[in-house]
């Protein structure tokens, strides 16, 4: 297992190097620059000063290597170019916990809702339960999250007045965005669980469990579930990462100061270091979640071990 972790860790470094260098060249070659305001041009002397400060007077590859050097030697991601009094580390330290809090709540909702509906649909194949939960699932996949979100706001914030429509300071304000973010993922998990269960349920060990006279819910939860959720588990890696970093769209609708908001702002404003910081954090999360998924696979499926991974 240690060899597995070391190997994956090395691959992660390679991947991150490729991703960050590609992103750097892309954003640097883009037209536009971070210092020009839309209202007034920056004084040339100030501009030279700023460019030196942010090391933009060097060549583009040199700039990238300086950026890398700062990360490896001091763990610094540079300073934001729009809000010049803030470092990228500070921005991420502020916004990542917001995204992670919202994300973990959504993930929890998505997993519970998805597994529950998927198991019911699979256990009662071709019944009303099955058809209704699968139609709901396709609806959840088809509806863009901003449609879901605005529907939720309309019903629960404006009509019923149960929850506030936007913001991020009270616990009550977390509920609606978490649901809006969770529903599409719940739909995917539900479909995957149903198919997983249907594949497992015909197998011998399930028949054995049934033959022992176990109750249906015991057979499904204790025996079938373990095999049925393998496809769900492999979906969870990328899903967890993208939920955790927060949907850009949901954050925008509910005015949530999460990481995704800063990425979009950074990309539009050509805030080079902010963009690089968010890309780095997101890619790292994605990679770590995928490693966790692989480890979960080993734990769940006795046929898989770390050598074959």
């Amino acid at each position, binding site marked *: 297992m240690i060899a597995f972790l070391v190997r994956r860790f090395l691959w992660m470094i390679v991947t*991150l190097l490729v991703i960050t260098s590609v992103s750097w060249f892309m954003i640097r070659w883009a*037209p536009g620059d971070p210092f020009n305001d839309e209202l007034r041009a920056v004084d040339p002397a100030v501009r030279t000063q700023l460019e030196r400060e942010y090391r933009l007077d060097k060549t583009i590859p040199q700039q990238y290597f300086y950026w890398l050097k700062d990360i490896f030697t001091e763990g610094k991601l540079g300073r934001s170019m729009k809000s010049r009094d803030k470092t990228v580390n500070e921005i991420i330290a502020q916004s990542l916990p917001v995204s992670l809090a919202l994300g973990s709540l959504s993930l929890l909702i998505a997993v519970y809702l998805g597994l529950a509906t998927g198991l019911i649909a699979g256990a009662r194949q071709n019944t009303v339960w099955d058809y209704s939960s699968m139609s709901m699932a396709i609806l959840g996949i088809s509806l*863009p999250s901003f*449609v879901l979100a*605005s529907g939720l706001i309309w019903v629960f914030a404006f009509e019923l007045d149960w929850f506030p429509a936007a913001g991020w300071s009270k616990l009550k304000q977390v509920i609606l965005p978490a649901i809006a973010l969770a529903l599409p993922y719940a739909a995917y998990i539900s479909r995957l669980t149903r*198919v997983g269960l249907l594949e497992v349920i015909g197998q011998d060990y399930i028949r054995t469990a049934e033959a022992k006279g176990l109750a249906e819910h015991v057979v499904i939860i204790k025996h079938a579930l373990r095999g049925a959720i393998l496809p769900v588990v492999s979906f969870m890696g990328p899903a967890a990462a993208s939920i955790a970093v927060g949907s*850009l769209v949901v954050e925008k609708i509910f005015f949530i100061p999460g990481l995704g908001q800063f990425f979009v702002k950074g990309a539009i404003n050509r805030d080079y270091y902010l963009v690089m910081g968010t890309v780095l954090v997101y890619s790292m999360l994605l990679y770590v979640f995928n490693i966790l998924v692989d480890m979960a696979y080993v734990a769940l499926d006795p046929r898989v071990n770390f050598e074959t991974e």
Partner: protein
Amino acid sequence: MTKVAEKPRPGAIAQDDLVVGSSLFKDAMRRFLRNRLAVVCLVITVLSGVICMIPHLPGMPTSITEAHIITNHGQNNLGPSSEHWFGTDELGRDLFARVVYGGGISFQVAFLGTMVSLIIGVTYGAFAGYLGGRIDNLMMRFVDILYGLPFMFVVILIMTVVKKETNSMIPIFMALGLVQWLTMARIARGQVLSLREQEFVTAARTIGASTPRIIFLHIIPNLLGPIIVYTTLTIPGTMLQESFLSFLGLGIREPHCSWGSLASQGIQAVSPIASYWWQVLFPCGALALTLFSLNFVGDGLRDALDPKGRQ
């Protein structure tokens, strides 16, 4: 994939097999047509596609094409009526015209984006699978690395790289296609790995066919089944991504519109005091209905083409 036959029905086997030979696609067609819901969804998709594409066809009277940008002073934010079926927006533009026109844009972006991902993905995957060995390993490692790229981030990066002044669909569907070919490449490669060991490939190689010829003329046609299925599921995916982009203000720009940008405008106009519900309902409804149908058609095709019914 080539030898798959439907599960024999008792009693009917001999007749079916002997009298009318059935091809894979005939079988698939029959299975698809039996799936009522999928057929209905196919009809809905085709209908809405055709209607939405009318204003975009060459040779159409300009009144149809331009109806969506004509602002009517004093008629802003009107509810649905016999004159404006879907009401009007804040500038007094007829929402029905805008929904139809925007739908055409959504369809085009979704279709072209999927085509870009299809061409790149299938070619890449087929070459990797056919060449095999170290090249295959290298090529697929590259795909693995790209999988680590945050999908939406890349699209946004590409969209911001493109100059703000250019108002065309090309960067949007290119960006969407460029990030969606990865799964297509994996599917194609997996299929090719088993295909290339089969006799007809060996035969082609024996008579001296070149590698590109074998890939494009012998292998890719045999990939059609899984590719068609994945393509029909990618089109709604691309449409959804485009609507996200437009919603974030990075996609289609004024005066043009897509379902995503219309929905975005409608949702931004919602407030507890005044909700112009038609500005939200009609674009969102059109988008949701189309995505729903496309997904069902994709599912139906998958069930029809792959009787084992994965996923």
